[in-house]
Each structure stands twice: as structure tokens, then as C-alpha cells.
């Protein structure tokens, strides 16, 4: 199924007799759902773009690359830096903006500019009954009624099929510099990241892998030079600077988890506290990429380590199996939280036909 507009989408969902597998480009789908594929690629195109108001409204099936190109023409971008997971997951296909929203896909700049859900200001969707619903809108500040925009971000198509999404976008900075810090062990290297995050120098990326810590600053040229200088004194180790395209390439690798792309084994995504980052991974004998100052941990581990990883993370975050076979993909939720989530799913999709079981 491939609806060409909202009316068709609504009819298809309302008339569906069996479960549907909602798909943008299928480049970042996780989980176990099966069903007849409902592709959103027909719902494509920019609805409204006002660079002077930092506002973009776009249909959900629009390719992410097209969205980024439209923004780049005005020297703007999506602040949350959505990852491209195709190489990591070994998938082809065209990532859609709806898929980005449905998975709340957010990259290294999350520590400074927030996640996808923080930039998302409006949604239109068709729920499991075929009803067309809008929430939020195209303005930056909006507390009119409940915030279903946040609820839909990261809901993986289980509450409704997104047809249109609106964003607050960001101007591209004049300059970008990354401090590459070498000569520190993992503990000291992670501490350097936390020190950068706790400084007033407004860092927009803080990551560590392959024995190097990376700290990014962006903004006006004079300001970037000033902050890079201050940070150099603050973080310790041996610092070299990467600018512009060279810096951008470093962050693409972190964002897209490229160091693990061509390696065998499972890949886990762990969200935790920066101070727990080293401890969580200490006993796991796995390759690690730390992002968000240690708050996001990518693990490349041998298959079948799920129970061990869950135990290491218990009480201080959660782990998702992004690549690998067997075992639950998503971490379990506390019973009272799971009950609320199940209640919402039952009301938005009473027949249980949208990506059923995907988040289980």
C-alpha cells in the first residue's frame, strides 16, 4: 500500500483487515512487527518553509536528504543531526523524515540542541481507526492542549501513521572546530568530556572512541576560536584541532556509528548517565563509542550478551539491541509505565493493527 495523500491514507488504515507494517524507507526500523507494508513515500514534499521564522513543514514521506538539501540552500539545518544508520545496519533504501520522527533519531548535537522531539513542533497523523488528527502546529511556542507531538516522536508507528511533520530549524554556524584529545585513558578521556559539558563554552558535541576524545564548538568565527582556546586549557591531554569539513567528517562517523559498520557482532545502544558510562562498559569486553559525554554508549559485543548488558545498565539507564539476532530489542518498562503505554496504544489503535508488537 502506498497512499498518495492523507485521504487515501485514512481510507487504507480504516479499511485494513489485517495488521499493517508502517514504513518510511525502512532504513532504521527495529523490532518484530509483521504485516502488509504501508509505505509513506507517496506523502512527499515541502508544505511550507519560512527561513526567517526558522519553520519547516514537510510531508512525512519526504526523503531526509531532500529535507536537508532544501534547508542547506538557505544555510539552515535540522539541529538534532539525525543519524544515517544504513551502513551500520546494512540496509539500502531512502530514509524519510517521518521515519526520523517515528524513531526520535537524534545525533551528537542532542547534548546542546536537544533531540528530534525537541525540534518537532507539529504533527498530522492518521490513527488506527483512520481518523485524521493534528497536534501542535507551525509556531515555536505552543501549549494549546496536550502535547501529542512529543508522544508521537519515537512512537515507531504504533499510535498512528504520520502524514506531516513540522520543525523548528537552525541556522548553520559560521564556523566549526573539533578538539581532538589524545593521550588520555578512557576514564580521564571521559572526564575531559564531562568537564567540557560543565563549562560555559557551549559545546555541541562530546564523544570518545578509538582512544580519542572529541569536543566540538560551533558558532561565529571569533567565538569559536575563543572557546576552542579555553577548552584546550580545560580538557588536558594532547590537543589538535580539526576545522570545517574535517571536523564534520569526525562527527558523521560518531553520528552514524561508522566504526562498527563493517565489524561483526551485535550493536547495542545504551542511554545512561555520563558518570556511569565507564562503569557500565567496564566488564563487558566490547568495543565502545561514547557520545553525549558518555550519556550515550554504543557497544559492539559478541552475540548473546543481552542479559549481561541489561544487568550492567539496570538502575542507571536502558539498552536497546540495534543490530543482532534474538532476545528482546527494547528494554522492559516498569509495570505501571507499561500499563499506561498499553492503554494509549489501545486507544489510538483499538484493533492493534499498526506495527503491532514492534515496541514490545
Amino acid at each position, binding site marked *: 500500500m502506498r497512499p498518495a495523500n492523507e485521504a487515501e491514507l485514512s481510507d487504507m488504515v480504516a479499511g485494513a483487515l489485517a495488521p499493517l507494517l508502517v514504513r518510511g524507507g525502512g532504513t532504521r526500523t527495529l523490532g518484530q512487527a509483521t504485516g502488509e507494508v504501508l509505505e509513506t513515500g507517496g506523502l512527499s514534499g515541502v508544505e511550507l518553509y*519560512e527561513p*526567517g*521564522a*526558522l519553520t519547516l513543514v514537510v510531508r512525512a514521506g519526504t526523503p531526509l536528504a531532500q529535507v536537508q538539501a532544501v534547508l542547506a540552500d538557505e544555510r539552515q539545518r535540522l539541529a538534532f543531526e539525525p543519524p544515517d544508520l544504513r551502513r551500520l545496519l546494512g540496509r539500502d533504501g531512502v530514509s524519510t523524515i517521518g521515519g526520523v520522527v517515528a524513531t*526520535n533519531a*537524534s545525533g551528537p548535537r542532542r547534548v546542546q540542541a*536537544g533531540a528530534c*522531539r*525537541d525540534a518537532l513542533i507539529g504533527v498530522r497523523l492518521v490513527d488506527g481507526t483512520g481518523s*485524521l*488528527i*493534528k*497536534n501542535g*502546529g*507551525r*509556531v*515555536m*511556542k*505552543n*501549549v*494549546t*492542549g*496536550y*502535547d*501529542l*507531538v*512529543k*508522544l508521537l*516522536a*519515537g*512512537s515507531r508507528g*504504533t*499510535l498512528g501513521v504520520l502524514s506531516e511533520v513540522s520543525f523548528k530549524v*537552525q*541556522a*548553520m*554556524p559560521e564556523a566549526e572546530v573539533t578538539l581532538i584529545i589524545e593521550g588520555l585513558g578512557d576514564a580521564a578521556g571521559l572526564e575531559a568530556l564531562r568537564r567540557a559539558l*560543565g*563549562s560555559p563554552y*557551549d559545546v555541541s558535541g562530546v564523544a570518545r572512541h578509538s582512544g580519542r576524545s572529541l569536543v566540538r564548538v560551533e558558532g*561565529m568565527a*571569533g567565538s569559536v576560536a*575563543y572557546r576552542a582556546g579555553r577548552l584546550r586549557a580545560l580538557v588536558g591531554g594532547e590537543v589538535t584541532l580539526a576545522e570545517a569539513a574535517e571536523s564534520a567528517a569526525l562527527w558523521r562517523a560518531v553520528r552514524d556509528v561508522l566504526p562498527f559498520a563493517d565489524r561483526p557482532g551485535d550493536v547495542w545502544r545504551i*542511554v545512561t*548517565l*555520563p*558518570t556511569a558510562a565507564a562503569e557500565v562498559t567496564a566488564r563487558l569486553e566490547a568495543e565502545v563509542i561514547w557520545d553525549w559525554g558518555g*550519556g550515550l554508549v554504543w557497544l559492539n559485543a559478541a552475540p548473546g550478551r543481552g542479559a549481561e548488558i541489561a544487568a550492567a545498565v539496570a538502575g542507571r*539507564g*536502558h539498552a536497546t539491541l540495534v543490530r543482532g539476532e534474538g532476545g528482546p530489542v*527494547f528494554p522492559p518498562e*516498569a509495570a*505501571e*509505565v507499561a500499563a*499506561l*503505554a498499553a492503554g*494509549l496504544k489501545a*486507544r*489510538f489503535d483499538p484493533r492493534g493493527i499498526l506495527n503491532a508488537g514492534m*515496541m514490545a
Partner: protein
Amino acid sequence: MQMPLPDAGVIARKGRIVARLRAVLPADAVIDDAGALRVYECDALAAYRCPPLAAVLPRTTAEVSAILRIAFEEGVPVVPRGSGTSLAGGAMPTADCVILGVARMTAVLETDYDNRFIRVQSGRTNLSVSGAVEAEGFFYAPDPSSQLACAIAGNIAMNSGGAHCLKYGVTTNNLLGVTLVKMDGTVVTLGGPWGDASGLDLLGVVCGSEGQLGVVTEATLRILPKPEGARPVMVGFASNEVAGACVGDIIKAGILPVAIEFMDRMLIRVCEDFAHAGYPDCEALLIIEVEGSEAEIDEQLAAIKVIALKHQPVALVEAEDEAQAKRIWLGRKSAFSAIGRISDYMCLDGTIPVSSLPYVLRRIGELSEAHGLAVGNVFHAGDGNMHPLILYDANKPGDLETCERMGADILKLCVEVGGCLTGEHGVGIEKRDLMSVQFSGADMEAQMRVKDVFDPEWLLNPAKVFPLEISAARRAG
């Protein structure tokens, strides 16, 4: 303002309900005499008042849970209250309700500078959260004008903003987790000090749900290292339209000040009288604040000045020192109380696309003429969140009604140009009956389903947010 008829059965059982509450709470935590209850008869939307059946002031999550369990069993509506500063009537009682005030829940439970968060009880005031981390060089970013008084609980209920959210975001962007007590007394933890939720973003929908989904007793908030410095610049213009155009150009140029505030002539004069900030006397004034080291501030202000000068400003003044910067902000943040010294007023809160600013300001002027009531404008221009202040005379029969009609016309105008009814104050009772201007029946049905899940009996703050006729069947049920 129409409110549902109070439940006579509940009122008749007042004695029993109060006795049950007293049995689980300390003696000073239950208020039921008519005189003391007057304190709770309204919030900052003071035009509407109604004393509640009783008020309770718990100190712990366990006490909140016990209260809600009793109210649930007795079928008593509960209206949560932070500091009572809602401009939308969010904490306005009904005669059959228990007010659950969190004013005594003010403790700091945990501060963690390494991981940059603070966990507080929800009755703590917004400003005192920053106060608790200030010595270590940190602050809590959302800064509603009422921040000296307003509680984090109310900030979460309304998803409050503030002048500096242009850069730092509103409450929802700075809230990491909550402890929430559901109407049946169940205690739920949502989010945590770490980044994202693993499942559905329930925290995201709780924030801004106006106390209708649960009572938030604890909150984990993101704290940020304080910038090295900040400096506001004031730019005066000969017309509102030109000021509006200048805002658009600054944003488009890719400069992100922490705040861009707008005041028109009426507000400039009123705030100057109040704060003696040295505001230039002109038609329209922008206060633009940037942050960083001295050199970074100079770099940003230089770029802003280049843009501003293209719009023929009539004044361009940088704050000379810290003291003047403070007065500039004191005047702006006191705008509502300053205007309160000269007249009764109603404060609106619609948001519009920034590009529509000139048109909307012109239309508001026309509506002011048509209804015969003066309007002052003060707002967060960078994100289009307007605060038209309509002046009226509460002692003049019919004036409040005219004012409300005019307010409704202005909010409809906001929706018409692609904006919304409320940007940061919330719907409450004030904008409840205008919801259908912005939302279809299906849109509101989807929102009400969320309440059905959290509070199936519709006992928590039930007469708010949704038009009464639309929520009637659920509230009765």
C-alpha cells in the same frame, strides 16, 4: 465563565471526606474552614473565584498518594495547585473539589553537577531552583516572568516558557523526569536523569497537561553552566511593523540571541515608570540579549547592529553596566504588574508565525478601536509569542465582557494566521471554550483519550482545557 454544577452529593459528604483526609495527614495539612479556604478561591486569573470544599498541603509523595486514593474512592474532584500564579485559571477550584497544594514540598533532593541535573520536590519555586545551583556556576534555564513565585509543579503543568527560551527552550526541553501520582494513588516514575525514554515519551505528554493526568511531586531538571556574561541592547523603532521586520532579519541571519523582547509605546512608558531602566521613548522597542565572554558579546552585538541599522532605528542603546542590564530586565519582567498599577487588564498569550507580526499588530490596533478598549503589547518577539494586554474597568458594567470578546477576537486572529491560542500560559478555563477554533473534534478526542488512560474517572482538574460540552460525557462518567 461557565463551570460545571458542583456535585451536591460530594458537598454533603464534606465532613466524612475531611475526616478521612485528617486521618492520613498531619493536623496542619488539612484546611476546611470557610475563612482559610478563601486563600484558594482563585489564582492569578482573579476575575473568577470559587472557594473549594477543602484544601490539603502535603509534604511528601506518600501523603499525595494517600490524599488522591481517598479522593478517588470518594469520587471527589481534585485541583492541583503550585503557587497559584496561573493566568489561565489552571488552579481555579470548583465548590466540590479538594485543592491539592504542593507549596510545602520545596526540598532539593539531589544535585549532580557531573551529570548536570537537579532533583527537587515540585513545590519549589522556579527561581530557587537556580538559586540552589548558582554557587557552583549553574542555572535552570526556563524563566517565566513570575519565576520568583511560580512553582516547578505549575511550570510542568503549563509547560512554561520565559524570555530566554528562544535559546534554551521551554520547560519540556529542560525536564528529564518526574515522579507522578495518578488519581488512583499509584506512583509512577517517568524519564530519569538520563537522556531519552526507551518506550513512548509519556514524560513529554505529561508536561503541559495542566494537572489533568497526575500530580507531579518530584522533578528532575536539566541544569546548565552559566554563560560567562550577558548584555542586553535596546533598539527603538518608529513603528511596530519595522520592529517586526528587524526581528525576522536577525533570525534569518543565523544569529541566535538568548532573547528578543518587544514592547510598544504604552508598555515602554509604564515599565519605565516602574523600573527606571532608561528605555528610549518610541513606538516600538526591541530588547535583544546575547551571552558569552566580553569579546563574544561584542562580536554578536556588532552583527545585530549591522542588521538593526538597516531598519532606521530611532534609538540603539547597549546596557552600560550590570545594574542597568538588571533594570532593563526588571522592567520587562514586571510588565504585567506595572500595567496593573494603572488599570485592570486581561493578558493574552497567543503565538503567531514571526512573519505575521506586522499584520497581526495592525489588526490588534483595529480591534482595539472597534471594541473601544486600549491594548498594550509586550511579547517574546523571537518566537512570536504575543502578550497583548487589554485594559478595562472592572467596576464598569459590561467592560469585562467586552474585554473577553475582544480577547477572543485576537486569539482567533492568531489561529487564523497559522498560530495558536496559548504559547506558554496554558488553556485553563480562560481559553477552554476557544479550543474548537484551533482543533477539530477528532483532534480534541485524541487528547481526551490520553486523559482517559491516566484518569479514567476524569476527577483531576476536570473542568479545564476542553470545552465543557465536549468533555461532558466523560466527566459525568
